[in-house]
């Protein structure tokens, strides 16, 4: 069984493919735990996983190039490649590049949408406009992905400039973990936002992977 990588490694370095298999999943490091869990639960042993550093999300303009490099590096070793990124702030560029490379990717604008279910997320429309989302990974890595990159550790006075238009922090939980709920609640307090807990499970991520697993 694949050892679960730690969050710091997933944030800064990602994860190398190592299991072999017919299908390679090229994913965001922020999804590694969820994908490895789904692999284990569903017995998808023909799927291998490699992750790019999750911190790429701080620089969405770099995601398309990084995914492209990973596809090109790995494509000869696998029958199929599936990109486990949504659009993720690339403004359609990742989708266009994947189409040009002949690989499929997860549907949706971002992981908050596919965890909730893309249809359901879209249906909420402007109701969630003022919500700041966290997933299990982002709750665990709140300081690395939110607090420090936004400079709030050094300049707490920036909080209202950055988050002043938000009203709520929605914690989209993939797992039932009371400790994470409390941590997410504390994150909301630190940002001055009201807290909402929404259990999503794996949403459309699981459906997408199921589809790939069955197809190949």
């Amino acid at each position, binding site marked *: 069984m694949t050892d679960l990588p730690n969050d710091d490694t997933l944030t800064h370095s990602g994860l190398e493919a190592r299991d072999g298999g017919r299908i390679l999943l090229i994913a965001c490091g922020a999804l590694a735990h969820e994908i490895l869990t789904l692999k284990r639960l569903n017995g998808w042993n023909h799927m291998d996983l490699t992750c790019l550093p999750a911190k790429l999300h701080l620089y969405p303009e770099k995601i398309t190039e990084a995914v492209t490099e990973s596809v090109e590096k790995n494509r000869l070793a696998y029958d199929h490649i599936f990109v486990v990124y949504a659009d993720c702030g*690339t403004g*359609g560029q990742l989708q266009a590049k994947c189409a040009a490379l002949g690989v499929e990717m997860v549907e949706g*604008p971002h992981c908050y949408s596919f965890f909730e279910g893309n249809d359901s997320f879209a249906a909420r429309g*402007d109701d969630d*406009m003022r919500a700041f989302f966290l997933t299990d990974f982002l709750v665990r890595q709140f300081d690395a992905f939110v607090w420090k990159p936004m400079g709030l550790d050094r300049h707490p006075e920036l909080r209202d400039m950055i988050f002043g*238009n938000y009203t709520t922090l929605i914690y989209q939980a993939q797992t039932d973990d009371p400790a994470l709920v409390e941590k997410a609640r504390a994150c909301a307090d630190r940002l001055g936002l009201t807290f909402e807990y929404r259990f999503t499970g794996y949403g459309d991520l699981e459906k997408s992977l199921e589809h790939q697993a069955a197809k190949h």
Partner: protein
Amino acid sequence: MSDQEDDIILSELDNEELVQQMFDDLYDGLKEEIEEGVNILLERGWQPYQVLTEALVGGMTIVGKDFRDGILFVPEVLLAANAMKGGMAILKPLLAETGAPRVGKMVIGTVKGDIHDIGKNLVSMMMEGAGFEVVDLGINNPVEKYLEALETEAPDILGMSALLTTTMPYMKVVIDTLIEQGKRDDYVVLVGGAPLNEEFGKAIGADAYCRDAAVAVETAKDFMARKHNKLAAG
């Protein structure tokens, strides 16, 4: 008090040194120091427009360049913008009184469904610094609000901003409505925001995509110069 002897007394600096120091203070996001520097220059008889362009815009241009080059990041830019805002608050009423040159007028807002305004606010501030009159519609603007502002404000430029992949297509809704109403050619339409790119700007029928505030200012100036040339030729 051990570092007191190292403190720089702004009022003791000559103009050139003071402007240089204000560049540094803006870079470091020191709002109070910027406000003090602005007041000193005004007391020395500088025109508000000169203080704005030479001290504040000059300093903010360096900040913008270092942001583009990956030397500065969002928090530092926000602090610098906040410092510049402090200086602008002093200068704005004076600029109105002294009849500073007006390059053009812009209506700007973040599109419907989107509450992100950091980039838009930076553009507004830099446009004002460059001599544009800016009417800022804020966040979450439906097409009706843009149209109403265009009607009442009669700007030269419409600026739209979006940070989300899900909200950026709304810019096309606004542009298409302008086309339907036969008003598209009355305005220069500039668009910006993190997930946008030049291709998207072209595809939705904008006049230009601006990747940051400095580019927005240069692009706006360029379009205004073309407009004036066209009028002069006509």
